[in-house]
C-alpha cells in the first residue's frame, strides 16, 4: 500500500485516519514522538530511536501503552507493507483522550499510541546545503522530543522562504542545533559538536557520527561552539534521522567550510557503510 497509519489499534491510510478532538495533542501538544528513515524497508537505527521514544515519554510522565518488542515488530511489519522501499516512520505517544484540562487526570486512563509510515527519502549526501541562522527562542526542554514544535515550524518556514534547507539556531553567540537537526563543525581535524544538555536534542545520528569519528581516530570535542567559530570552521554539517551527514556550504549567504573535503567524505562514507550494514543485519533477522 502507499502509506499506513495506526492509532490506538485502528489501521487506515494516513489521509483517512481520524482521531478524537479530545486527544491531548489537539489542545496542548501533550506528547512525544520519534522518527526514522528506511533503506530497503528497514528503519535505520530503529532500536536507538525506539529506546529514545520510551525515554522521552518517561520524561513527561507518559507510559507508552505497548511493550518495546511489540512496537518494534509492528513498525517493521508496517514498513514491509508500504510499497516504497524508502520511507519515513513516525511514532508518537500522547497523554490520552479527555475533556480539556491541564492536569494529567483529565487525560483519561490510557495514553495514545500513533504510528505512520509514508514514502520519503534520505537527504542526499552528494549535494551542498545552505542554511540561515536565527536566535533560538525555544523552551528549555529541547532534550525531550516533544510535539511542541511550533518554533521549529516557524524556523523551517523562514529557511524555506530564504531558499535554504535549514535554520541554524543560536542562543546569543552559542550555536545550539537546527530547526530539526543537529549541527557540527570540523576544525583542525577534530569534530566539534554541542554537548547534550537541555538546549539540544541528543540526536541518534549525532551519536553515531561521534562514535564513528572516535573509531576512525578523529578527535571529538563535545563543547559549545560559537557562530563565529562555525563561520570559520573547515567544514560544517548537519545530521538527523533523514540526514546522515549533510554538508553545509552557505550560511546566511556567506560561503562556509570547504576546507576539509576529504575528512567530511570519510565521515559520509562511514555513515553510509554503517546504514547498509544495519539493513543487511535486520533483513537477516
Amino acid at each position, binding site marked *: 500500500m502507499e502509506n499506513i497509519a495506526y492509532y490506538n489499534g485502528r489501521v487506515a491510510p*494516513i*489521509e483517512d485516519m481520524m482521531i478524537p478532538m479530545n486527544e*491531548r495533542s489537539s489542545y*496542548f*501538544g501533550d506528547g512525544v514522538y520519534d522518527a526514522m528513515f528506511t533503506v530497503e524497508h528497514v528503519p535505520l537505527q530503529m532500536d536507538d530511536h525506539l529506546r529514545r521514544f520510551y525515554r522521552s515519554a518517561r520524561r513527561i510522565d507518559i507510559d507508552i501503552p505497548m511493550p518495546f518488542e511489540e512496537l518494534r515488530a509492528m513498525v517493521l511489519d508496517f514498513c514491509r507493507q508500504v510499497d516504497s522501499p524508502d520511507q519515513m516512520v513516525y511514532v508518537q505517544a500522547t497523554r490520552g483522550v479527555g475533556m480539556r484540562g491541564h492536569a494529567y487526570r483529565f487525560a483519561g486512563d490510557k495514553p495514545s499510541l500513533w504510528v505512520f509510515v509514508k514514502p520519503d527519502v534520505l537527504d542526499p549526501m552528494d549535494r551542498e546545503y545552505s542554511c540561515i541562522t536565527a536566535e533560538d527562542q525555544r*523552551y528549555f526542554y529541547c532534550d525531550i522530543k516533544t*510535539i511542541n514544535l511550533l*518554533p521549529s515550524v516557524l524556523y523551517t518556514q523562514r529557511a524555506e522562504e530564504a531558499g535554504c534547507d535549514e535554520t541554524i539556531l543560536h542562543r546569543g553567540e552559542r550555536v545550539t542545533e537546527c530547526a530539526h537537526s543537529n549541527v557540527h563543525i570540523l576544525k583542525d581535524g577534530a569534530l566539534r559538536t554541542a554537548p547534550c544538555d537541555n538546549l539540544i536534542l541528543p540526536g541518534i545520528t549525532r551519536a553515531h557520527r561521534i562514535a564513528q569519528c572516535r573509531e576512525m581516530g578523529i578527535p571529538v570535542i563535545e563543547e559549545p561552539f560559537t557562530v563565529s567559530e562555525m563561520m570559520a570552521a573547515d567544514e560544517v554539517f548537519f545530521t538527523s534521522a533523514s540526514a546522515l551527514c549533510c554538508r553545509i556550504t552557505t550560511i546566511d549567504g556567506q560561503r562556509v567550510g570547504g576546507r576539509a573535503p576529504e575528512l567530511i567524505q570519510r565521515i559520509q562514507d562511514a555513515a553510509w557503510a554503517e546504514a547498509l550494514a544495519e539493513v543487511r543485519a535486520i533483513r537477516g533477522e
Partner: protein
Amino acid sequence: MQNIAYYNGKVGPIEEMMVPMNDRACYFGDGVYDATCVVNHVPMAFDDHIDRIYRSAKLIDIDIPMPKDEMKKMLLGLIAQVEGDVLFLYWQVTRGVGMRNHPYSAAGDKPSIWAFVRPNKMRDPFGVYKCITLEDKRFYYCNIKTINLLPAVMANQKAVEAGADETIFHRGPRVTECSHSNVHIIKDGVLRTAPCDELILPGITRKHIIAICGKKGIPVVEEPFTVDEMMAADEVFFSSSSALTCRIGEIDGKPVGMKDEKTFAAIRDAYQAELRAECGVK
C-alpha cells in the same frame, strides 16, 4: 444539549468529534487558541478574545479563513445550543491538514477552525488560593496564545501534586506569569504587574484590571517584579478569563499577602460588577 464541538463545519458532541490525524495540531501544535467563560449565554469580554485570536494567528502567519463577525456568529450559535448558566467557550485555529512536514506549504490550502462549548464551574472569587513556584523554562513566544502548552501542562500538574491551585513561573528572580494565568501584586496601595513582552501573555482580565485601577485611582506599575518582592507584597493574586481574580494566601507553603484586602476587594468587586453588567446578571 450538554456540550457541543465544531470542526471545520462539522458539529457534534465533544466526545464524538473526530478530526484528521494530519491536522497540524497533532504533530506540531501548530495553532493558536482563545477561551472565555460564558454566563447567561453571554461570552465575557468577547470582542477582546476575538481580537486576540486574530492577533495570535497573525503572529504565526495563520490567516483565519473566516471574518471576525462570522466567527462571532458561529460561536454564539454554538453557545445557544448548550444548556447551563455558566459555560466554557474554547476555540482554536490550526494551520491546516496535510502530510507531516514542517514548512507551511505542507499544511494544505486552508487553516482549520475548532471550537467547543461545555459546562463550567468558575473559581470562588472570595476564596484564598495556594500556589507553588517553578523556574520558567518556556519559550520566548509566551505573548502568543499557542497550543504549544506542554510546559504549562507539566507545571500545572506539579501544582496539583503539591495540593496547590496554580504554579507561578519565574525566570531567575523575575516573576513572569502562572501556568495559565497572570499574576499581580499589591504593595503600598500600588498594583504591580509584569509588562507585556514575549515572556507573558497579554491577559484580557489583566487588561481590565489595569483599566479598573485607572478608574479607581489605584496606581499601576507595569514593571518586572521579583520573587522576593512577591513574597513580601501586601496582596498577591492571579487572574485569567476563567479565574477572574483569585487571591493568593500561600506560596510554596509560606503565608503571603492578605494585608491589603481593601485594595484587592476594590479591584475584585469592580471586575465582578463589570461582568455582571455585561452578562445581565443581577
